[in-house]
């Protein structure tokens, strides 16, 4: 399974990683090795197996709808690169957004 340079750049863009040309050449073969390793699973016939969504053998863990204390604002903002005492500050974003 070979990656084109374009595919690597697209993956990097989605992950917000800035890769140099050198890094793109380096990462490609590494990703290929990882996928080849996982590819071994394809040897198994899974036609009759239901897709598994969790490795845990439990279901239905819930919490009651009750409010509990969270973080103090000062604590929540303490590690932010930038804050104004009330908000996290980030480089300008246009209104609207994603999602």
């Amino acid at each position, binding site marked *: 399974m070979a990656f084109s340079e374009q595919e690597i750049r697209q993956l990097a863009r*989605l992950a*917000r990683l800035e890769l140099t040309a050198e890094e793109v050449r380096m990462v490609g073969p590494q990703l290929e090795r990882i996928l080849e390793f996982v590819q071994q699973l394809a040897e198994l016939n899974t036609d009759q197996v239901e897709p598994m*969504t*969790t*490795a*845990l053998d*439990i*279901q*239905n*863990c*819930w*919490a*009651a*709808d*009750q*409010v*509990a204390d*969270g*973080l103090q*604002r000062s604590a*929540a*903002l303490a590690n932010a690169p*930038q804050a*104004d005492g*009330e*908000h*996290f*500050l*980030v*480089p*300008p*974003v*246009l*209104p*609207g*957004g*994603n*999602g």
Partner: protein
Amino acid sequence: MTATRDDHGRFPFETIIGLEVHVQLKTVSKLFCRCSTKFGAAPNTQICPVCLGLPGALPVINQQAIELSIRAGLALNCRIPEFTKWDRKQYFYPDLPKGYQISQYDLPICAEGYLDLPETDTGEAAKRIGLFRAHLEEDAGKSMHDETGGLTQSRIDLNRCGTPLLEIVTKPDLRSAEEARRFLLELKLLLTHLEISDCEMQEGSLRVDANVNLHISAGNQKVVTPIVEIKNMNSFRAVERAIGFESLRQYDEWEETGATIQTVSKRTFGWNDVREQTFVQREKEESADYRYFPDPDLIPVALPAERVDAIRAALGELPSQTRTRFETQYQLKPYDADVIVNQGPTLVRYFEAVAKVAGDAKRTSAWIQQDVMRTLKEQQCELNDFPIAAPTLGQLLRKVTEGSLDNARARDVFQYLLRHGGTLDEATKALGIEAVDQSELDLLCDRLLAENAKVIDDVRGGKQQALGALIGQAKRINPNVNPGQLRQRLLEKINAV
């Protein structure tokens, strides 16, 4: 058949609309942590390691969010699958601290369903709108950008992060802006009735995205225009106007550029409420790039049939059923039943309580629509703060029905009660309203007839309307006299002579 251009020079076209509606579920805590969901708190005061996406935090599902989602799904005629799970939707945005949103991809909590729109008083027929699905997901935070303060930085408030949303996705079954508005009104009525959501667009507890395109019959060919998703509409009116604007914009764009669904991919447009225009936000959708995968931090949900059945049994009467019942039980016209039911459960309860005491549902319906609803609107108050209790209004209307109080006097009492509250007895006493007994009525009639011989002749000559002058005089002598009773007694006396 070949389609030709109309008076505006346009070929016939049909607007195809599908809606994605996000409603905030009425829980007190968030979907995966126990931070408060209260609206309007100071920024970043309702956050914790889970909704901030700090390393090592473990999300736990809010049971009430599951309950409310199933309730919504059942009311929307959705199939509730026995198994549902959580997936991560990856994207980067400053108001999404985890770098992914927990959502549901291939196994949503509510599968296919539909919502029936009732027929309207303007003659629009009833219509069934299909739903693809409804899934649970967490909300993102809020980013604020102050353009006037220079474009240096944006401020982020993460209070809303993790608030439970149910995203309801319709099939492309809607055919006009007005129909989209009807759908939203009916959906809001249903979800507020069941206390699933407040559905307040202004507070963000209901948000709508509309997918719009056109099917144009140009000559003998069928043209499909590129799909546009409209965002940022902040009221039902805005949704209606945005879709109306967008459908004509797409028609013009097709005439100008020939763009079709084959040549232009889906785009995202915003809605400018001031200019009343849609505008391009994103040229290309990148939906394939969210790279959903099952969230390993969360456990799947199994919903045994018994649990779903229990929620179904507790649903109670839905607004559409109330409409039908009002028509049969109270013989209300569909329009009147619709007006009352559309006001929501509080007014429905008020109506029924008044009608029960009054013993006259049609009169109750008329008074509630004309007097109660108008007052609420004029005084911008909620029914919960309305000064006239349902039994009091019921007693008042019973008196009107029985004939012991005429409409005009009853309205005086209504106004008095509005201003002063209290009981019906207190109001009638304060207004000097006393029942006029038979002997008083007889005396009054005798006096009037003695003083107005000509009226007697006129009535005998077939001019019953001549009695009107006597009723006016009687009202001046004794305002408590009931015009109907007076009229009847006068006639008896004239005919007896």
